[in-house]
Each structure stands twice: as structure tokens, then as C-alpha cells.
């Protein structure tokens, strides 16, 4: 990863480098949620260890929380959340619990507080930690053993990643968004193609994206198998950060911006692999199968498994169509859904809600379609309500909810029933991901909203 952005951030965090050992990397920010942390805190207790830097650690409640008012009714979910509260109190870790104005999905909360900054190393027991790479941070998901490791030592032993440059040049057409870019990239790379890599997204189409759109792109790097996604910080990044609660101020701000401005891959940087996409050729994208790499432009038909050259891809596609209840050759636009979900760490930020609301405004959700709109954080919810977006959603017949992970994963009350089919702005269409037997089509907020109005997979251009 010579001379690349990823290498620069990596090198600036090496605590120890020795022959035959992984590098020991310092971790600038450790985010926690209730699902992947209890066993880590338990490990600390058993070993008589403390949290080395509680001030670089932040927790929020997101995966289990119901998005309707009231307490958690599922006793097992409640225990997990209560365990997080006890652990944070015992070890002195800041927690945003349900009901707190700063509560929300961990990957929405940290950026909006200005805690996610360029050049940092950020980890969380959650694969979508790659989201924070949108700021030029090296951010990746870890397992619970590693959560315990970071709690105890504020560092992690890691083998260097390889680097993959994904360059997207040109201008996106109307109605094509960051979500479509990343779904197209995953379809091209495959779910395993990014394994071992940090992806750097670059090119004029990436530079033109807002910070929130960049977060959508980096969020789904993991779905290509990559450990992290990164985008070099620029004026868009600095403008987003300035004035946020945890952003530097005064002389510190100037020093930080000077440092951040050096965080870009050298012109002669060598990537281990490179791919290019032409933004102008991209269309609204949608998945038809049971992994995020099984996607196609919305204008395409459900593929014939026999059309795949690779035997394993063929078998996979066949199995996916069976699970999804789809027939090869069916136009994707003819697929009828009964549920539409707008939200998640992929597309639960204010710009996503604005985009969906703009499509819905003055129209009605199709009969037989249930639409859930779930802000990614409480702050996003309050902002949306201040802009009147909640009314647009309610008047269109959609349900306006409280912040949380919601229907992105079947861990809280928001789930698909067996056989139900969703158009979802979340990140995974795995079998049963949104509830046992549920069928998921991953889409952008614009496609989600248009689909809600028509009842079949659609883009705003179809309205």
C-alpha cells in the first residue's frame, strides 16, 4: 500500500513493529453497542483488567431498541441493553441510552458529533464501522475478542491490508445516488473480491458527493468483503466537521486542517489492485438475490442462473432465486413488494430522509404496502421533524419511527414475516436478515420511495 492514504494513516499509528509479528496499531476511537460488547467486558472483569482509555470510548444503544415509544418488551433484548448500561457505569464509559438526544445508530452518532475525523483509527464491534472511512479515517469492524483487546490496551495487533483503488469518474445521472455507486461496485467486485483490502474510493464522481453520501459508499465496503473503505478528506469534509461538538476549534482547528490536508494518496502511489467505473453509465441499482453482490440495474431482468459461467455462482443464483421466490427473466420492475424500509447506518441520515420525502410529497403509499421510515439517530429525527419531513411521511401513509437499527436486522420488533418482500435502504439481503423467511431487495432511498408509491420496484423516473 505504498504511498496510499491507507498507508499514511496506518504508519501514523504504529506503536510497535517487529519482524514476524503483526504491527501493533494505536486506536483513536472505540465505539461500542450492546450486542458485541458484553462478553468483552466480562473478559476484562475475569482478568482483573480495566478500560485503558474510557475517554476514547463511546457507547450507544441501537441494535435491540424498539422504534416505537416505550420500553424494550423482549426480556433478552432488555438484559443485553441493561448489561451495557451496567458495564459503562462500572468502567466509566460514556453511553447514549434510549431516550437520550444523542442516541442512535453508532455509525450515525459519531460523525454527527464530530468525533469521526480524518486520519483517525476507529474500530467497533460492528462490520459497518467502515462508514467512518468517508472522512479519511481508517475504520473497520472487529470481533468481541478484539473489542476486549482494545478496551484493555487501546491498541490492536494487525497484519497490513492490501489496497484497492475504486475510481469513479464522470457525472451521475439524475436519480442515481451513492447507494447505486456502491451496489454497482459490489456487483462488479463480488462479495469476496475485496477480501484483505482497504478500498480507496476516488475520482470526480466521489469528490462530488456530500459527506453523507460518502458515508453510504464507505458503509458498504464490507459487503464487497473489504475490511474498510476510505475517501481522502477535502473541503467538503472540513466544512462538514467545522463547528460540530467534538471538532477542534481555534488554533487546533488550523493545525488539524493542515494535517488533514496531507491525507491523500501520492500521485505515484501504488495500489495492489484498481478498478474503474464511469458514473455516467450507472443506473439505479437493485439486488435480486441473497447477497449484496447479486445486483443489477433496475431496468434489467431477473438473471437466468444458467447464464453464470462459474459453477458456484450458478448454484448460488439458483438457490437465491428459490429463496427469493423469483423466476428468471422477470423484469425487476415487475417485482411487487409489501414492505419498504428507509433507514439504517447505510441510508438513515437526514439527506436520505429528504430524498425519500421529496419523492413521496403529495402522494400516497400504494395499497398493501407498509412503509417504515426510521431515522438513524435521535438528532436526525429531530432535524427531520423541524423540517416537517415527518408530516410528509405520515401524510403519504408511511410510519414515522424513533431512531435505531430497526428493520436492517431481525433483532428488534421491526421484522419481515416469512415470505414478505421488502425494498430496503439497508445493507444486507442475506437469507433471513430482516426476519425469518423475509426477502430483501437493497435499494437507494429514491428507489425505496418510488417503490412505495407504485408497489413494484421503481425509480422516481417511473412515476
Amino acid at each position: 500500500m505504498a504511498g496510499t492514504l491507507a498507508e499514511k494513516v496506518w504508519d501514523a499509528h504504529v506503536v510497535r513493529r517487529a519482524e514476524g509479528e503483526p504491527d501493533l496499531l494505536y486506536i483513536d476511537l472505540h465505539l461500542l453497542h450492546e450486542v458485541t460488547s458484553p462478553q468483552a467486558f466480562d473478559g476484562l472483569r475475569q482478568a482483573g483488567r480495566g478500560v485503558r482509555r474510557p475517554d476514547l470510548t463511546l457507547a450507544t444503544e441501537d441494535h435491540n431498541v424498539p422504534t416505537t415509544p416505550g420500553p424494550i418488551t423482549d426480556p433478552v433484548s432488555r438484559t443485553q441493553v441493561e448489561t451495557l448500561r451496567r458495564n459503562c457505569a462500572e468502567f466509566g464509559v460514556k453511553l447514549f441510552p434510549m431516550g437520550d438526544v444523542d442516541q442512535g445508530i453508532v455509525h450515525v452518532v459519531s460523525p454527527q458529533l464530530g468525533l469521526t475525523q480524518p486520519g483517525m483509527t476507529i474500530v467497533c464491534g460492528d462490520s459497518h464501522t467502515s462508514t467512518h472511512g468517508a472522512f479519511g479515517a481508517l475504520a473497520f469492524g472487529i470481533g468481541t475478542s478484539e473489542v476486549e483487546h482494545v478496551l484493555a490496551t487501546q491498541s490492536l495487533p494487525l497484519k497490513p491490508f492490501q489496497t484497492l483503488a475504486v475510481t469513479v469518474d464522470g457525472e451521475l445521472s439524475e436519480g442515481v445516488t451513492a447507494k447505486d455507486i456502491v451496489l454497482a461496485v459490489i456487483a462488479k467486485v463480488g462479495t469476496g473480491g475485496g477480501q484483505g483490502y482497504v478500498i480507496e474510493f476516488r475520482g470526480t464522481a466521489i469528490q462530488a458527493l456530500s459527506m453523507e453520501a460518502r458515508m453510504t459508499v464507505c458503509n458498504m465496503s464490507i459487503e464487497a468483503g473489504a475490511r474498510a473503505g476510505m475517501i481522502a478528506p477535502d473541503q467538503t469534509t472540513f466544512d462538514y466537521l467545522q463547528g460540530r461538538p467534538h471538532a477542534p476549534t481555534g488554533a487546533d482547528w488550523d493545525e488539524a486542517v493542515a494535517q488533514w490536508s496531507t491525507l491523500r494518496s501520492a500521485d505515484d502511489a501504488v495500489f495492489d489492485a484498481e478498478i474503474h467505473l464511469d458514473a455516467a453509465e450507472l443506473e439505479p441499482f437493485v439486488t435480486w438475490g441473497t447477497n449484496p453482490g447479486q445486483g443489477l440495474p433496475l431496468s434489467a431482468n431477473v438473471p437466468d442462473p444458467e447464464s453464470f459461467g462459474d459453477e458456484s455462482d450458478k448454484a448460488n443464483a439458483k438457490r437465491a432465486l428459490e429463496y427469493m421466490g423469483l423466476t428468471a427473466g422477470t423484469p425487476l420492475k415487475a417485482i411487487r413488494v409489501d414492505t419498504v424500509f428507509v433507514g439504517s447506518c447505510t441510508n438513515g441520515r437526514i439527506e436520505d430522509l429528504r430524498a425519500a420525502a421529496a419523492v413521496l410529497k403529495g402522494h400516497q403509499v400504494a395499497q398493501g404496502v407498509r412503509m417504515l421510515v426510521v431515522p438513524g439517530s435521535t438528532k436526525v429525527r429531530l432535524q427531520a421533524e423541524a423540517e416537517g419531513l415527518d408530516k410528509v411521511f405520515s401524510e403519504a401513509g408511511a410510519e414515522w419511527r424513533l431512531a435505531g437499527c430497526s428493520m436492517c436486522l431481525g433483532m428488534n420488533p421491526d421484522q419481515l414475516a416469512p415470505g414478505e418482500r421488502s425494498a430496503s435502504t439497508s445493507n444486507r439481503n442475506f437469507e433471513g436478515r430482516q426476519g425469518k423467511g423475509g426477502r430483501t431487495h437493497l435499494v437507494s432511498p429514491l428507489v425505496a420511495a418510488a417503490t412505495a408509491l407504485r408497489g413494484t420496484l421503481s425509480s422516481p423516473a417511473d412515476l
Partner: protein
Amino acid sequence: MDKFTTHTGVGVPLRRSNVDTDQIIPAEYLKRVTRTGFEDGLFAAWRKDETFVLNNPLYAAGSVLVAGPDFGTGSSREHAVWALMNYGFRVVISSRFADIFRGNSGKQGLLTAQASQGDVELIWKLLENEPGAEVTVDLQTKTITAKGIVAPFQLDDYTRWRLLEGLDDISLTLRHEAEVTSFEATRPSYMPTAIDA
């Protein structure tokens, strides 16, 4: 963590690629706050299908899972590793593993043996023709043997060493705590903390 040198056990052929961690253990099973008891959620959706391989009594006592490429993709949940180990698996053989899953396995002592897809196919055939056949995985020599099959596998040297010695990562890092402290002193003053805003 227990030392891992060699393991022999019943092989289970899982002829599927892209086995994501939502399939290994669905989200509804992630609510426990312990590291044990997750075997009930292992492949929960697939185990409802009576033709699923683990529902065949000849494979049910399996401890070596032989899976298709891209095993363990998706969520970072270490519960996937706990579920496999709680069930009784000690080794997963595949031609390609997802990074986070492989890392999590190494921390817990579940051996991820990366073999060629050609060798995986040979082992699948053997296990399907002779259900209940045993597979031996030797970490010293990085070799898989099963009946007439002898196949090499890959694992990085550092993880191999840790598994052979049964070493806990945190104790290893704490040997270098002074280096962490000196690094900390060099961090720029503008870097944020989560405490005061």
C-alpha cells in the same frame, strides 16, 4: 485459550459458498451476554430443513466443517465462532474466508484451514460417499488427511504460533504496554475525546 496441535474428528460437507454469518447464527440468537449456549442458533434456519447435513445423524457429531468459498462473510459477530465451537466444531476448511471471521476464529482457537477448492471438492466427495468419515488436521505440518487424501492448508505464521502455544493476544500486547504509553504521549492535542463536548 487451549493449545491446538492436531485434531481428528468427523468431517461435515457443507456444499455452499458465501455462507454469511447471518446463516451461521441469525441475529435473534445474538442477545445472550455469555460466550456459551450459542449452539442452538447454529445454522438455525437451515437446520429446520430435514435434508440439511447436520440433521443426518452420521454427521451430527462432526467437528471439522468443510465449506465452500467465502465462508463467514458479512457481520463481525464473534457469536458465529462461538456457535460453531459451542456445537463442537474445532476446524473449518474452506478455500476462502472472510477477514473478520478468520480473525475472530484465531482469537478463540477455531482453526480456519484454507485449502484449495480442488482439495475441498475431493474431501466433499469422500465425506458424502462415506458419511461419518474422519478428517485429521495437523497444525504442526499444516496438513489435512482423510482416508487417501493428503492436502496442505494455509494459515499465517503468527496465528499458527499463537494457536500452537495457546497464547492470549491481550497478554502478548500488555508485554509492550510501555510502548503504547510512549506512543500516546505523541498524539496531537487536537484529537478528540468522547468525554467533553
